[in-house]
């Protein structure tokens, strides 16, 4: 690992100012992804600016409007265990608990979870080309090992997937990311925070250089919904998703009043299944309708040589999860 300086910021403004003064700097959360990437030689910051002890960012608070504001330095464990999160946004608690391990979730922060790199094995191996790590060097995954990589939204330059479970639930819940930068603050909706690779695979998110995540905000729940996170993986626990799903469903009798579906493990971003949602919203909730919606969502999928299995897996996961959810009280 290359030598680096270490600074600890006391509040968001100081953290932003420290980073602006040192262009080779990175913000440090729990370090569960960044420190690993530094050890692998993928990341070589000149300075780490520790943002885990920023004022007011270590807690979950209710806003005057009934939203829940989750500070960026809150650990993944604390987020998943919070009684308000478990009661109002159970899909978020479930998603977080399906990610990583108990000891990693204790270290990892909410801001850091959103900023963990969208990645594949080639990105993490500095002896291999990778357009995300070294723009223009090529993408060996297209012809190489891509069994667990993207089936939608990928580009010629990058087929990596975002591994966050939390972000999939946040996409279904339409949470917002609050950021502070040299030019002030702004609010970025999820989905919309992560970006597809296009011709700039080195950029995982729409964050501008020097911007710091200060909080994630969850809108007040709109009426009663049924929520569920499910994750299919090669072993039952502590593995990245092959495909995962976060669903929020509101039924009015047999009619779909509202439905929101996001998929993990299929794209460079948490993939909002808007086609399936459109097919279902306002429709009568039947097994056939759900199946057709899942088919509509995956109709445009572009699997690679070895990951076509994910198309059927995603279709079945959408169908099964919604049908199961409709049966719960």
């Amino acid at each position, binding site marked *: 690992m290359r*030598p680096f*300086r270490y600074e600890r910021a006391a509040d968001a403004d100081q953290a932003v100012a420290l980073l602006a003064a040192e262009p080779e700097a990175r913000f*440090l959360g729990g*370090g569960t992804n960044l*420190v690993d990437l530094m050890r692998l030689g993928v990341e070589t910051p000149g300075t780490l600016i520790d943002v885990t002890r920023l004022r007011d960012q270590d807690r979950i608070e209710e806003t005057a409007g009934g939203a829940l504001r989750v500070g960026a330095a809150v650990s993944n464990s604390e987020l998943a265990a919070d009684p308000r999160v478990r009661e109002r946004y159970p899909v978020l608690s479930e998603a977080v608990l399906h990610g990583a391990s*108990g*000891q990693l979730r204790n270290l990892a922060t909410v801001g850091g979870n959103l900023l963990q790199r969208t990645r594949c094995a080639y990105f993490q191996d500095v002896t291999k080309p990778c357009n995300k790590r070294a723009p223009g060097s090529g993408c060996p995954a297209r012809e190489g090992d891509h069994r667990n990589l993207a089936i939608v939204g990928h580009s010629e330059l990058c087929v990596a997937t975002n591994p966050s479970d939390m972000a999939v639930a946040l996409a279904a819940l339409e949470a917002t990311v609050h950021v502070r930068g040299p030019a002030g603050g702004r609010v970025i909706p999820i989905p919309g925070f992560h970006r597809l690779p296009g011709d700039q695979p080195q950029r995982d998110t729409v964050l501008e250089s020097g911007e710091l995540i200060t909080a994630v905000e969850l809108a007040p729940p709109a009426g009663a919904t049924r929520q569920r996170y499910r994750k299919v993986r090669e072993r039952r626990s502590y593995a990245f998703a092959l495909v995962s799903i976060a669903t929020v469903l509101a039924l009015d009798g047999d009619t779909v009043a509202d439905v929101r579906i996001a998929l993990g493990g299929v794209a460079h971003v948490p993939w909002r299944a808007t086609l399936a949602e459109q097919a279902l919203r306002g429709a009568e909730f039947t097994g056939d309708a759900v199946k057709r919606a899942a088919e509509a969502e995956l109709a445009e999928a572009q699997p690679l040589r070895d990951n076509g299995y994910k198309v059927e897996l995603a279709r079945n996961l959408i169908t099964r999860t919604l049908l199961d959810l409709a049966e719960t009280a």
Partner: protein
Amino acid sequence: MAGSTEGARPESPVLAQLRLRVNGTEHELTVDTRMSLLDLLRERLDLTGAKKGCDHGQCGACTILIDGRRANGCLALAVAHDGADIVTVEGLADGDELHPLQQAFIEHDAFQCGYCTPGQLCSAAGMLGEVNDGWPSAVTPQGDSESQLTEAEIRERMSGNLCRCGAYANIVPAIAQAAR
């Protein structure tokens, strides 16, 4: 801090001061900013219980307790944990009295080579604290406020600790016994 100019990447190691409480003893240390808590414990304090299995947060052999919560020592930069209270496997026992988890691991023969055992023990100690605090797991049903420590719960909550000998069949009942 020394050895660097503002703005550029430092060419030589950068040193930092920190204070740690480790198994009840206070330490003041000067460390390279790159040093992990795991390396600090093993190489500076001669506490070699926590193991370096993968050094990438994937195996759990380095699990220690930081301020009462279990964490992977390999991914925790020492400098970022200035002021922390650390407990390693060497600090679990109370003098000659083994920790209930240690006693249960012996009674259940919950290891073969023993390499993962310090991490398993610290992880289990942290995990039981989490259960005690009402934290759910991925297999806890929605709406359950009290977590029952079933076998499925133990397996899920301990999934961050790999055992290459496959002693899980004895680790699970050992933890269940210690939890009672």
